[in-house]
């Protein structure tokens, strides 16, 4: 056989492998959506879940998921951006920073259930936050921080060093160059990484079972003062998220329509994550267009 034929054979095999992967993904996605979406209604999305009877909703769980997501991002975004900037732009090459990089590498591959148990020990027990949104948000931060830091560092590193030299040659300090030249150029990549990270923690269950808890107290949606005990925003209350809800009704649910609720919840979860992924691409592209000067900010 000659080189041309080998090339054709190899290309065909690679195509088949790709088609297989796409098929598996499409099948999973369609299966979840087809079995779940018929059970989704406005009442289901906004209603309260029930413990024994059929017809419960996921309103509280959805709210909890979003609230936890926001809190976790509020904590992890500044930390990861700071750490990423330090590692990419300032860290000298020595054993200490190598150790930090290795630690981040290992942390990012930590199983989420380990993160959950760690969060349970440290945040819930030792720091006495109990089963709470705060414990959950902190556990999610531990879970998410290594990946976000890596993403920020990678995005900054992808900016060519000649961009930095351009800044220095104009008499700008390293800090000014980093903040006004390198970070804006890397922002699309950073934002994309953040949104993908959001998708990841939105679907996270294992890290939350022992930290944010598996149930929510009765909530008073007329009082939004975070210090009020029954307020939805109270960070010290326990909170069952959508992903935990799915896990729970499948493992110990006694409602008669458990299968339906689980399928519908999964569909909502997948849709939300899909939405975040598309948003990541869209925002990334838009930002790139903007920051590369298509329109001047007055």
């Amino acid at each position, binding site marked *: 056989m000659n080189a041309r034929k080998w090339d054709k054979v190899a290309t065909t095999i690679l195509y088949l492998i790709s088609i297989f992967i796409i098929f598996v993904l499409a099948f999973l996605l369609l299966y979840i959506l087809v079995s779940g979406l018929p059970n989704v209604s406005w009442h289901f999305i906004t209603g309260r879940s029930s413990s024994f009877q059929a017809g419960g909703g996921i309103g509280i769980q959805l709210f909890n998921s979003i609230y936890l997501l926001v809190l976790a991002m509020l904590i992890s975004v500044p930390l990861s951006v700071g750490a990423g900037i330090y590692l990419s732009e300032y860290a000298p090459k020595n054993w200490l920073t190598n150790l930090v990089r290795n630690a981040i590498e290992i942390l990012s591959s930590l199983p989420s259930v380990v993160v959950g148990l760690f969060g349970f020990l440290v945040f819930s027990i030792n720091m006495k936050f109990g089963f709470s949104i705060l414990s959950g948000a902190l556990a999610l931060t531990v879970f998410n921080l290594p990946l976000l830091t890596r993403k920020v560092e990678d995005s900054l590193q992808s900016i060519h060093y000649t961009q930095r030299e*351009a800044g*220095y040659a*104009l008499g700008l300090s390293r800090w000014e160059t980093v903040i006004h*030249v390198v970070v804006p150029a890397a922002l699309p990549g950073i934002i994309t990484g953040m949104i993908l990270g959001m998708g990841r923690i939105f679907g996270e269950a294992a890290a939350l079972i022992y930290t944010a808890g598996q149930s929510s107290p009765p909530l008073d949606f007329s009082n939004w003062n975070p210090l009020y005990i029954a307020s939805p925003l109270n960070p010290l209350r326990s909170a069952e998220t959508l992903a935990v809800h799915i896990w729970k009704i499948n493992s110990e649910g006694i409602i008669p329509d458990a299968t339906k609720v689980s399928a519908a919840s999964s569909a909502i979860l997948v849709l939300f994550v899909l939405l975040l992924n598309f948003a990541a691409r869209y925002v990334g592209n838009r930002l790139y267009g903007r920051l590369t*000067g298509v329109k001047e900010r007055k």
Partner: protein
Amino acid sequence: MQEYDKSERYLKDLDDGKREIALSTDDLHVSYGTHEAIHGVSLAFERFKITALIGASGSGKSTYLRSLNRMNDNIAGTKVTGKIMYRGLDINGNNIDVYEMRKHIGMVFQQPNPFAKSIYENITFALKRHGEKRKDVLDETVERTLKQAGLWKQVKDDLHQSALALSGGQQQRLCIARAIAMKPDILLLDEPASVLDPVSTATVEDTLMELKKDYTIVIVTHNMQQAGRISDYTAFFHLGDALEYDETRKIFTRPKIKATEDYVSGHFG
């Protein structure tokens, strides 16, 4: 490569009181880690003239140029010793505000490196950081520098478009405009035309000839014709030493050193 006797040198001393010297180095050594790349170079650059630094790859001409505004400071393990005199001040000293100094000694690089911002922002951004907020001054600077760089006619209607959409030659001229927007005394250029096509190269060369009226220019180039066309003085670098420094005319017609003669006649490099 043929071995040359490096003790054989001819370095014209321009600092003889007859002309104004913009910048000079005295016994400048540059080393990366344990490797010494520049072995003590002393040259003086006359004001409002173009000086070309020529030499084969690895001769140290770019390293030398980058030391002049201390761009090598940012490369870990680099050590620069010796004096760099600018306005009676040794700018290689520890007490020098490097950022302030670089406003006086600007640089254009081999690869065009416009910021991922608009054309207007590319030129005004550093000025704004240095405190210039008046819009009329900024507008005037953009127009003046783009005219000086020979780019104004092509981009005057697209000032708020991305600089990345420009062609390579246009980007390099934008980088020159950006550098002179700081109103530097001295402009260092590190092979600014090496990645450009002949037409863009010619435009950049015209730009430099034009800029000579207001700026002292030191340019590293691989292109001997270019050095011959635009420079007043030429320094020939070989393996980390400046072996010959003279008026360009003399370097190219009657070089005094064998290595220079072989290099300019194309025997190596």
